[in-house]
């Protein structure tokens, strides 16, 4: 367990040090909230499709989930950096269990991503009418989401050989996952083929669950379904990442 604890410590410590990086990561979702959100909320002033709440409040849980997703996925994939520039070799050459080490890293990164989500939630409290009581449970959803996508990122990273591949993945995967999650517009008004993609998108369940907890709006799925799907995916992806990392080489 020592290697696991040490890796969690490493990720948290690195996060606490990189202040400018943290600020940069928070600015992006805030820009979405303020410029995109406030802009459209004027258009949607009388709209009924958001379950009886204003658009900004509807959007806030989506932006929260988007932030956690972005951070956790990128930190997972950034294992490539570690391979290119050292630290991965350092871990691979150590006698510690690789599964344990990478699990520690994933959990550490997930906590970091969830904390960033929390910062966004607290800032958006000023603009919206979120339920304060929903914040804590929503963080639980955020953590499951982060574990799932951080693990997914690690698994991808063990398969990608180059930086170009990394850029590709980011371009091809990240935006569609966000657009197809119901974070910025409802899944219910999508055409059937988009809705199909949304249903197989893990982010959809996080947005749905967090929105239900934070705004009280009835979700697409029951809360228990959201949590079950997320919990299952988090565990499954974590397992896959641990096995993929165990077998990874520096070739």
């Amino acid at each position: 367990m020592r290697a696991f604890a040490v890796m969690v410590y490493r990720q948290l410590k690195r996060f606490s040090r990189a202040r400018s990086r943290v600020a940069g990561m928070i600015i992006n979702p805030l820009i979405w909230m303020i410029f995109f959100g406030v802009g459209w909320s004027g258009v949607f002033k009388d709209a009924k499709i958001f379950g009886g709440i204003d658009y900004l409040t509807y959007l806030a849980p989506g932006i929260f989930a988007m932030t956690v997703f972005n951070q956790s996925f990128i930190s997972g994939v950034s294992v490539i950096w570690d391979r290119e520039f050292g630290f991965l070799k350092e871990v691979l050459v150590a006698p510690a269990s690789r599964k344990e080490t990478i699990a520690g890293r994933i959990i550490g990164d997930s906590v970091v991503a969830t904390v960033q989500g929390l910062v966004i939630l607290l800032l958006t409290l000023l603009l919206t009418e979120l339920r304060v009581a929903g914040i804590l449970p929503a963080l639980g959803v955020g953590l499951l989401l982060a574990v799932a996508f951080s693990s997914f990122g690690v698994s991808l990273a063990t398969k990608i050989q180059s930086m170009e591949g990394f850029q590709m993945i980011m371009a091809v995967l990240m935006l569609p996952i966000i657009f197809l999650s119901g974070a910025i517009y409802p899944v219910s008004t999508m055409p059937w083929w988009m809705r199909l993609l949304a249903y197989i998108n893990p982010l959809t369940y996080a947005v749905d669950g967090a929105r239900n907890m934070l705004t009280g709006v009835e979700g697409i799925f029951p809360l228990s379904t959201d949590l079950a799907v997320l919990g299952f995916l988090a565990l499954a992806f974590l397992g896959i990442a641990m096995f993929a990392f165990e077998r990874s080489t520096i070739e």
Partner: protein
Amino acid sequence: MYAIKVENLVKKFGNFRAVNGISFKVKKGEIFAFLGPNGAGKTTTVHILTTLLKPTEGKAEVAGLDVVREAKEVRKKIGIVFQDPSIDRDLTAYENMLIHGGVYGLSGAKLREKIEGLLKFVELWDFKDKLVKHFSGGMQRRLEIARSLLHEPEVLFLDEPTLGLDPQTRDHVWSYIETMREEHDMTIFLTTHYMEEAEKLADKIAIIDHGKIIAEGSCEKLKRMVGNDVIYIKVENCAECFKGEFIRSCKVLQDGRIRIAVENTAEALPKIFELAKENGVKIIEATYHQPTLNDVFLHLTGREIRDEGGEFFRKAIARARMRR
């Protein structure tokens, strides 16, 4: 007892044979240097011996354990300083040591004690709470050396330990390496493309080029391959050739100096002085030229070991850019 035993090791990347059938043995407590130009297969060999790469063919044992079948056991016995920096730039020197210790299962007061001892050894204790990203290249390298010693490895691998360092820091690192060997009886496997480094530190040198070992032995033995030491002497009176069974050839040069080729300057020089005394010849000046390892490499390959520092800096710059 051998610390490293390698037989017919081959590593192919696609069709390219990075390591092409090498064999060698390193005795316990020895400093063994792999000398060769960039791309000769040095790092690939280190990666195989440290269980990071699997060999395509052949066999390698480290600390008596097979690097493929007993990889996990091997990992407990080895330490490594990689060619590229592998420390956490966003953490302090102390935190880097703490994390490394944790990954190797160390903890508590014992770990803290060791960290203090080692950071003092590499003269970084005063900077223990500074972020590594503010360290100079030499300080980072010293920290990596300290880190690699934390779990008391039996065999230490140093991949180009002084690449890109200034001469003063290089001297520092060399003295650490010598101290480590003396105090801990550690076996050290070192790769380098600096002749002076191999010459200064290594008990035994293997010259590697294009994935093959082209010569192996002590520094003196290798130098003897290229031939003779040459002694030039200037005498006061009649310039005449010396005769003796240790003299391979002798010639009076146009400027009056005498050129004497011998097998070993250290042994021959006193003999020459004795001969001169016997014959009543007064020597005013004596100089000599000994072949260098560069001469050896030149002799074997027709090329020189070039100093290719450029790649290191390109990588360093690329890293700085990507790390945001």
